[in-house]
């Protein structure tokens, strides 16, 4: 490895869950696109919060509340700098990517999408970036347009250009495909949308864990991701938005925290980001997420990506030599994900046989049924790599998969 200071064994030491046997074999965890494992620092931060700092935030008049508030808001600052956002007020904590998209659909959508308007998504979207827009379009009488993809799993940009018009109000596209690993050309997608006068939401659920995502360089209007795919806790996500949009948008949910003043004659709303964070938020997980960001920063995004790319290349080449191995998604620019089929075998069977020897992969449609239909398949087997995976683990996968593929090939 041409990297300095990158020691995968040292990294693995920080992830307690990796050190166990499953079905009598050492666990090989290759389901990172579903959720990544958590470093000890994140687990300890959760424990520490509940044992020493637990308190409700923003309004308590005591030491614990002040500490919890500081830690909570520190994470917001860290997320802001992680995304290179212009200000931390533009960082809103959500339950996850799905809630982030639904928030934008319910607020931006409610105010700015009208009858006859068009929203553009792509053929490789996750259901969470399809269904909220279908619901909004049905409610508003707007139309959903879909950017088609090639057989290799790349967006057809010429077709995208044709779909853009003055009717387009929003383009919502995933940065990296969870099912194929394709990295979409987000800069072009965004600049083309802006030229047509449309806003852009970036579903960054699968990109923030692999490479640097800079919201100002991208010039995106909204960006959403989940903490749990980025070595952080489950049940937590982030929505970034441009200030003027967030300020213009109506609140998402009503309740405590999101108000300035409540009177039976009417209510005034709080400033951003609090306007969008009704109720007691997920304090513990937000605070622990700080440690996940620190972990990524300690490893270094460049080193992390270089390691994962090396694994992906190694796996693609090695598994490609297995008779009956059919890769699904062969985009030129990919990250982390290797989706495949074994000729003559159902993905469920392959997944179950791999599980029998301690290898964790995902099988099925990956919440992207329209994409599976595009390839005329029911689903795939998906191996997805994270910073703690090793070539040895890919060798283990190779040996098992070779044995499995022999059944039918």
């Amino acid at each position: 490895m041409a990297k300095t200071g990158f020691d995968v064994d040292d990294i693995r030491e920080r992830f307690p869950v990796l050190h166990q046997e499953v079905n009598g074999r050492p666990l090989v965890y290759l389901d990172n696109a579903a959720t990544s494992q958590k470093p000890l620092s994140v687990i300890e931060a959760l424990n520490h919060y509940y044992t020493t700092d637990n308190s409700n935030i923003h309004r308590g008049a005591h030491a614990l509340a002040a500490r919890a508030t500081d830690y909570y808001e520190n994470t917001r600052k860290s997320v802001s700098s992680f995304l290179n956002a212009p200000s931390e007020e533009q960082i809103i904590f959500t339950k996850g990517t799905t809630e982030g998209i639904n928030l934008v659909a319910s607020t931006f959508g409610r105010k700015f999408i009208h009858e006859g308007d068009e929203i553009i998504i792509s053929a490789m979207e996750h259901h969470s970036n399809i269904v909220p827009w279908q619901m909004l379009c049905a409610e508003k009488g707007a139309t959903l347009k879909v950017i088609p993809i090639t057989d290799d799993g790349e967006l057809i940009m010429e077709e995208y250009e044709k779909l853009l018009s003055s009717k387009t109000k929003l383009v919502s596209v995933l940065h990296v495909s969870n099912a194929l690993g394709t990295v979409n050309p987000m800069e072009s997608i965004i600049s083309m949308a802006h030229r047509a006068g449309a806003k852009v939401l970036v579903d960054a659920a699968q990109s923030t864990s692999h490479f640097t995502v800079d919201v100002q360089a991208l010039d995106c209007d909204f960006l959403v991701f989940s903490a749990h795919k980025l070595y952080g806790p489950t049940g937590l996500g982030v929505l970034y938005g441009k200030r003027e949009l967030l300020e213009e948008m109506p609140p998402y949910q009503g309740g405590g925290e999101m108000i300035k003043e409540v009177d039976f004659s009417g209510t005034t709303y709080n400033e951003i980001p609090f306007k969008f964070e009704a109720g007691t938020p997920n304090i513990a997980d937000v605070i622990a997420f700080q440690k996940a960001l620190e972990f990524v920063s300690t490893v270094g995004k460049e080193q992390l990506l270089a390691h994962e790319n090396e694994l992906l290349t190694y796996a693609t080449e090695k598994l490609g030599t297995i008779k009956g191995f059919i890769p699904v998604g062969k985009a030129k620019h990919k990250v982390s994900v290797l989706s495949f089929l074994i000729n003559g075998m159902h993905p469920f069977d392959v997944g179950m046989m791999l599980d029998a020897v301690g290898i964790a992969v995902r099988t099925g449609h990956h919440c992207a049924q329209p994409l599976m239909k595009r390839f005329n398949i029911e689903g795939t087997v998906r191996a997805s790599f994270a910073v703690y995976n090793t070539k040895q683990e890919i060798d283990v996968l190779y040996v098992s998969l070779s044995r499995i593929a022999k059944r039918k090939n």
Partner: protein
Amino acid sequence: MNDIKSVQEEIIEEFSILGDDKESTIFYIMELGDKLPPFPEEEKKEDNIIKGCQSKVWLITKTEGDKVVYLADSNTDITKGLISLLIRVLSYRKADEILDSDLYFIDKIGMGSIIGSQRSNGLAAMIKQMKLYALAYQSKLNA
């Protein structure tokens, strides 16, 4: 003797030889599926799909004399193997026998931990459907 109990005992004996090795067990289950008699292609229709299974499972019955005969297929090999076990125990039996049967071999061979809870639900759905067919046949006989 080839009654429901003795066939179950046979299966328990076979699985005990495999021991705790999950990989061998899964391969064995799939091999059992490979030996299922062919299922008529024209019967692979929506009406014959068992609801409640994650995989697609087609099940039909016919009768030979007073015996109920099951034919089944699935789009996944492991599920085919599971069905083949059920067919081995329940097919070519009188409806009464099928309805009275206690399929204890499933727990005894630790199927729940082999296939996981989702597939266990699917297995339960298969058994339910097989018994429903037997019940329908019995009702017809008594009518």
